[in-house]
């Protein structure tokens, strides 16, 4: 097998927290090479160098054995490097074919676009790859999985032989993941080399040939995927052994009810959902994508209006119609999409941590007490081990796990009794995941009531004292947590 990519001694320095120290990486044709490491380990930075987004400070990059110098993503594209970003970058109002061929539309001599030929060209690629896509559909009509196919088709249409996939399954359900893996297999047989970045360990075993692990901006090792136990890979990533702990269910029979949701309805998205939550309890919400879990959370939090239903907090009926009502009632919500709904990325760590509690840091004239804010921010940076050079660092420069910790700090500071975590570990690596699990457990022990929404069953089972399962807007059952419930039981309720 020939070497598609050879990177040696790559160096990258940033004013912020990321950097690469003499990192090496190679990719053979027809292999899936997993690139693993905790957030901030430097995976994305390395890939951005390979795809021409960043300029390296040192080292060499060879593609097909020849030294290359990329001065922009276009150069990398021309050399056959395609990248599928974690956040899809499609134009939602254009059709599938228009997206695939954006900038390269077949046109007549007057510059008029030949729409028919455009659709035909797209169709050809889809047929070759066995994609079930209609070139004339608007992208906004498609599921995330289908949208991902468009990105892959787009990369292939550039005749990319090196494909970088950055957490391609983050937003996919099991069936869609299986579909993606079939596509990856057929790409492999065509000789395409795939660099696969994911935090889901089970996927690595299913799909990867080799695994390269990075930690703190350094190259650790490259191993064969099938000969290496997952625990070894994890310990390479975190630099220590991570024990797989199971949930320890406390006795909550004397614990008062903090939250009681009765007959919540919102169109088709939420249908007659009722449940309760005790002080000190962690209630997991399992279900497939689109089952209505996030919708329930947003309705309780007042982010979206609901048609009917009651939300009781601490035995009192609460009239929640805006997030500020919910926060006043002691409910905090940590969105699944930190970047859009959780953080002001352009502002610093301190400003983000204090965003929900500014009233506490002002005098009677509305003037902010910066010194107090600085002290609190640094307390939380220490307490939650947020990796940041200082509390005045822009949040946008932090890694995903650290950004999540900033959001958590914001709500801890707010002293909410009820915390709703929506996909708390999405895009977060194994080491940071374990930290966040510990944090959630500690919060429950302190007497907070916690709802965890997660699409990863192991995560729900690892954390929940009880597991609520939703399917198509309905609450299909509430199961006991721990060993009493199997994944199969949950899936049965989730797919009714």
């Amino acid at each position: 097998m020939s070497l598609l990519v050879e990177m040696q001694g790559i160096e990258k320095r940033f004013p912020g927290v990321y950097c690469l120290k003499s990192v090496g990486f190679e990719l053979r044709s027809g292999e899936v090479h997993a690139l693993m490491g905790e957030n901030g380990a430097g995976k994305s930075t390395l890939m951005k160098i390979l795809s021409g987004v960043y300029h390296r400070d040192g080292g060499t990059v060879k593609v097909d054995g020849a030294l290359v110098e990329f001065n922009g993503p276009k150069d990398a594209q021309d050399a056959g490097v395609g990248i599928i970003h974690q956040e899809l970058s499609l134009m939602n109002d254009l059709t599938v074919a228009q997206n695939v061929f954006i900038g390269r539309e077949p046109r007549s001599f007057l510059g008029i676009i030949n729409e028919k030929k455009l659709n035909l060209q797209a169709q050809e690629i889809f047929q070759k790859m066995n994609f079930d896509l209609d070139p004339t559909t608007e992208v906004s009509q498609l599921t995330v999985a289908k949208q991902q196919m468009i990105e892959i088709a787009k990369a292939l249409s550039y005749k990319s032989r090196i494909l970088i996939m950055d957490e391609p399954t983050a937003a996919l359900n099991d069936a869609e993941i299986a579909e993606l893996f079939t596509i990856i297999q057929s790409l492999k047989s065509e000789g395409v080399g795939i660099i696969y970045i994911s935090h889901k360990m089970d996927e690595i075993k299913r799909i990867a040939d080799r695994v390269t692990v990075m930690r703190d901006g350094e190259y650790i090792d490259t191993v064969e995927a099938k000969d290496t136990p997952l625990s070894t890979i994890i310990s390479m990533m975190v630099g220590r052994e991570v024990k797989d702990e199971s949930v320890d269910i406390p006795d909550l029979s004397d614990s008062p009810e903090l939250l009681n949701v009765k007959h919540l309805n919102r169109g088709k998205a939420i249908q007659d959902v009722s449940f309760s939550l005790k002080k000190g309890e962690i209630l997991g919400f399992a279900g497939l994508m689109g089952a209505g879990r996030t919708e329930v959370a947003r309705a309780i939090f007042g982010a979206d209006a609901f048609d009917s239903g009651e939300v009781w907090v601490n035995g009192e009926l609460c009239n929640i119609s805006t997030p500020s009502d919910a926060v006043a009632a002691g409910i905090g919500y940590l969105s699944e999409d930190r970047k859009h709904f959780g953080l002001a990325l352009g502002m610093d760590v301190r400003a983000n941590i204090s965003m929900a509690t500014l009233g506490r840091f002002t005098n009677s004239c509305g003037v902010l007490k910066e010194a107090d804010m600085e002290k609190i921010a640094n307390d939380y940076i220490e307490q939650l081990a947020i990796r940041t050079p200082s509390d005045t660092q822009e949040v946008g420069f932090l890694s995903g796990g650290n950004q999540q910790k900033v959001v958590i700090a914001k709500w801890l500071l707010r002293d909410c009794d009820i915390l709703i975590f929506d996909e708390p570990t999405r895009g977060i690596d194994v080491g940071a995941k374990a930290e966040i699990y510990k944090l959630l457990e500690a919060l429950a022990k302190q007497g907070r009531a916690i709802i965890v929404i997660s699409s990863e069953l192991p995560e729900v089972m690892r954390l929940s004292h009880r597991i609520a399962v939703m399917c198509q807007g309905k609450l299909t059952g509430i199961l006991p947590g721990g060993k009493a419930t199997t994944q199969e039981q949950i899936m049965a309720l989730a797919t009714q």
Partner: protein
Amino acid sequence: MTTESQTTSPSFISKLIKMTAHQRVLAFASLVILLVFFSITSPNFMQMSNMLAILQATSVNGVLAVAATLVIITGGIDLSVGTLMTFTAVVAGILLTNMNLPLPVGVLGAILAGAFCGFCSGSFVAKMKIPPFIATLGMMLILKGLSLVLSGARPIYFNNTEGYDAISRGSLIGEVLPFLPIPNGVLILFVVAGVASYVLSKTVLGRYCFGIGSNEEAVRLSGVNTDRWKIAIYAVAGGICGIAGILISSRLNSAQPALGLGYELEAIAAVVIGGTSLSGGRGTIIGTLIGALIVAVLTNGLRVLSVAQEWQTVITGIIIILAVYADMMRRQKSK
């Protein structure tokens, strides 16, 4: 070897760019260059009287630009600042001349009228979810019409109110330091700018200004009533326009109802030249102040050089584009 040399050059450039990291620095340098250029090309430019004229010209636009800065930092835009200024001037005229009320009532009335109009614009934006561009475009026309209606389309002179013209044209500084007769209008501009700058950097209102501009949804989901704060920000901006209304009518000793259209663009130009991002989340008052000075120096200097009015406008347009281009380049490079 080749890669070595190629990889060191961009870091050198990026270092250079970091040195001029802020648009403010860039804007300030341009201001200095303009001043030097005009004083070399024209001996009349650096005269005290001309400098004072520039400052006086900056005062009204500067105050408007401060108001526009607040709104623009939230990611919005206020096209109504110019006609709002005129409207408040007319309100002051009616209160002082037509109704013969004492001076403080007129001043307060104008500021409150401005704040109320800002409150309305803010409500259109926050509650009715009308895009700021449209909401304030509507407001701009409403106020232009109302100014003409209320004044009967005739200027209102402040002949009954003694000392009204001194608000802008008098010089408190000149009384203490006779060699430095800086007009009160300029003093007021600096006070307004100073307070606004403090509010932006040190108060809740300012923090939410940046927060809303940076990611409104995240702020709302933090339990902040973003609608109310947005309305408050537009109202404060409106009140500041009221101050500009007092300044301009005091300088002319009359409220001119036909005036005002076009001022909003000059104010937005000053904001943009000063490095405030039109997409929100970033900006400074000091930058806006420098931007307003650049616009005034340019207009004045070109006039001193006897460049035709028409060409002055063309050159101002080019400067705006260059300024924003420089800012964009800086941002791309620093990424």
